[in-house]
């Protein structure tokens, strides 16, 4: 049991446990905080797989921007009745059965697949570093990069148009 494996199992337990806490909390503010915890664990997985730029981007964009935006909106929206009405327990049961069955099928397929013996080389290679990523981003992926900037512009305009008062 090396330090990488210990880190992996700790991060896995943190991700799954805090995401379970996220979907079971009644108060949405606690849900947001547990989801931030899950994103920290997922970022740790990226770091373990040697994708350092992705680690930083995930931390900044998800836990820094999107989740704070969610918290801000929850502050704006007055949730007096913060306990959700427990309306449909059959829907809950159906969701558990559907998700659980598909999870079982995929885990069984993974268990019997022939990639089981392959291992991820953690902590090796410098392909995820910013220099390599930047070179590839501005050479091969420059068209998707520009298109995503247009997407951002249209999302910004759309958010303003939808959100403004009539």
């Amino acid at each position, binding site marked *: 049991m*090396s330090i990488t494996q210990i880190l*992996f199992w700790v991060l*896995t337990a943190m*991700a*799954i446990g805090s*995401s379970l806490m996220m*979907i079971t909390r009644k108060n*949405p503010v606690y*849900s*947001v905080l547990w*989801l931030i915890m*899950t*994103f920290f664990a*997922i970022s740790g*997985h*990226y770091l*373990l*797989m040697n*994708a350092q730029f*992705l680690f930083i*981007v*995930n931390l900044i*964009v*998800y836990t820094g921007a*999107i989740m704070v*935006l*969610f918290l801000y*909106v929850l502050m*704006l*929206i007055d949730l007096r009745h913060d306990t*959700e009405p427990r309306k449909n327990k059959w829907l*809950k049961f*159906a969701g558990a059965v*559907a998700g*659980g069955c*598909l999870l079982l099928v995929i885990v069984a397929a*993974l268990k019997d697949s022939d*990639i*089981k*013996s392959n*291992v*991820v*080389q953690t*902590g090796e290679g410098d*392909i*995820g570093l910013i220099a390599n*990523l930047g070179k*590839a*981003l501005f050479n091969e*992926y420059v068209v*998707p990069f520009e298109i*995503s900037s247009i*997407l*951002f512009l249209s*999302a910004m305009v759309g*958010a*303003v148009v*939808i*959100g403004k*008062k009539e």
Partner: protein
Amino acid sequence: MSEIPVTHILFVSTALFFIGMYGLFTRRNMITMLMAIELILNSVNINFVVFNKYLYPEKLDGLFFTIFIITIAAAEAAVAIAIIINLYRSHHSIDVEDATEMKY
């Protein structure tokens, strides 16, 4: 160098995906449903990174897919939150059961 089998990481992403799916099915609060969608997107991101690392360790396609997914998730969250605020302004609730004008 210690190594982790690829199936373990795939199991993590599968578990996160279905936890997010269960949350999407069972929660009725719109913001929590949006958070479940973000969790699903993140689990898919783990899949992209691990397959990039395992199949093509000298290439960068999976990492760029992940970066563009994060980009699109940010744009999607902005637009969805604008929709939620507008819906709250007209309905005074963010429960999905209360917004049934377009249902019938």
